[in-house]
């Protein structure tokens, strides 16, 4: 296993920094890759075909003439690394692994002397790799076209003061609510995004605080509390200020102990 890696590394360089001699069980032993870097590296692949293409290109192998055994071995090592890192391994990577193993085993069998190209067990894999490479390139070409918001900008030309009322899009509060419900439902399918649900009164107060401190350099902490709002109002203000502090949107300033506290925009 180490040998293959040494080989491949000598043929072309690995694309990230290598740190030698770390006593890690992570394979291969002579080639330590910081797990973070490896993670980024592995996540850069769009899938098994992309990974295979990378392995082939890195060694300057003609795609039409893939050394299946060597490539399979390298491929399996990457799969193993992903597994060790507990990367969520897409099933497609495993399917590809078994496809490679099958091709490899078929190539070990003797073939009739009169075999045609179509009988080459690699044919299907090569076809897929070529097709994928074609569209990988097409995607890059597409990405480099001039496009709106990047190279192409549209003019922003002001309308004159019209005497006529231009129609505006009509929106109902139901539209707004269902849009919110949908976006939250969708976000919740992905565990990483929990849309928190602070009471809106806090959100609203946060905005009020922000508006006020943007207007003035320093606003007294006390000014955000209005006795007429009662205990509930004070609590809402207090939570809003804490929330803004947590999100690093504001800071509290106090010159010395017991001096007045001021709220200002974080800078």
């Amino acid at each position, binding site marked *: 296993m180490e040998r293959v890696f040494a080989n491949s590394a000598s043929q072309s360089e690995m694309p990230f920094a290598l740190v030698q001699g770390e006593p890690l069980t992570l394979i291969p032993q002579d080639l330590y890759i910081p797990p973070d870097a490896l993670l980024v590296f592995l996540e850069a692949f769009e899938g098994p075909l992309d990974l295979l293409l990378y392995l082939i290109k890195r060694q300057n192998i003609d795609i039409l003439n893939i050394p299946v055994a060597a490539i399979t071995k390298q491929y399996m090592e990457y799969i193993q690394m992903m597994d060790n890192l507990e990367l969520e391994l897409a099933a497609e990577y495993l399917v590809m692994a078994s496809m490679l193993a099958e091709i490899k085993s078929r190539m070990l069998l003797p073939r009739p002397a009169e075999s045609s190209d179509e009988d080459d067990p690699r044919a299907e894999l090569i076809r897929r790799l070529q097709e994928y490479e074609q569209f990988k390139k097409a995607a890059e070409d597409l990405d480099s076209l001039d496009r709106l918001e990047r190279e192409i900008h549209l003019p922003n030309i002001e309308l004159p003061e019209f005497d006529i009322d231009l129609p505006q899009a009509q929106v109902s509060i139901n539209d707004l609510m269902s849009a919110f419900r949908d*976006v939250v439902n969708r976000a919740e399918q992905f565990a990483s995004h929990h849309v928190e649900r602070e009471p809106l009164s806090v*959100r*609203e107060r946060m905005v009020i605080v922000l508006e006020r401190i943007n207007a003035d350099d320093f606003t007294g902490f006390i000014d955000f509390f209005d006795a007429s709002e009662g205990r509930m109002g004070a609590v809402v203000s207090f939570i809003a200020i804490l929330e803004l502090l947590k999100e690093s949107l504001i800071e509290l300033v106090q010159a010395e102990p017991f001096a007045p506290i001021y709220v200002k925009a974080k800078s």
Partner: protein
Amino acid sequence: MNSDKLRPILEALFAAADKPLSVNQIFELFVGDIEQPGKDDIRQAIHELVEQYENNGIELKQVASGFRFQIRSDYETWVARLWEQKPPRYSRALMETLALIAYRQPITRGEIEDIRGVSVSTNMIKTLQEREWVKSLGHKEVPGRPTLYGTTREFLDYFNLKSLNQLPTLAEIRDLDQFNPEFQFDENGEMTAKEVDSAETDNV
């Protein structure tokens, strides 16, 4: 930089800018360039541009904070027909963006994108700002200093709300769904025109 070279650059700048540009603002844009025009060069080029557009459908016009291109009011009749022909409609994506700004303000564009899992186009935010439903509340002090957005007084007025507090909570929205299966979407994700009978909620 002579004015023949400067003129089309300024033309591009005035056309692209979403606010009027003053001579000073334009001057600042060139600071550091090898060929840096002086303020008089800029004034001269602006003067030429104003003349160049004298008989056109658009004009370079001076307003309080600088110069901007605008449609000549002589052509109002025809321009207004563009809207009659195609009354604007908001996309689903825009509604979701508005909903997130309303419910999660202050919020940055990046945060909206994180929650939606889909990128938010500049145009969408611009449309909401032009409608005066959304405004900038300042910047978040993180790398890139992204703009924080929130809803406006006009937003509340439009939806007939006294305060954000009156917006239904998510739990209430979900409860409502059970009684009211009227949130229908067609294949393109567009909201259908069909309105619910609860008159107090939807009218604008």
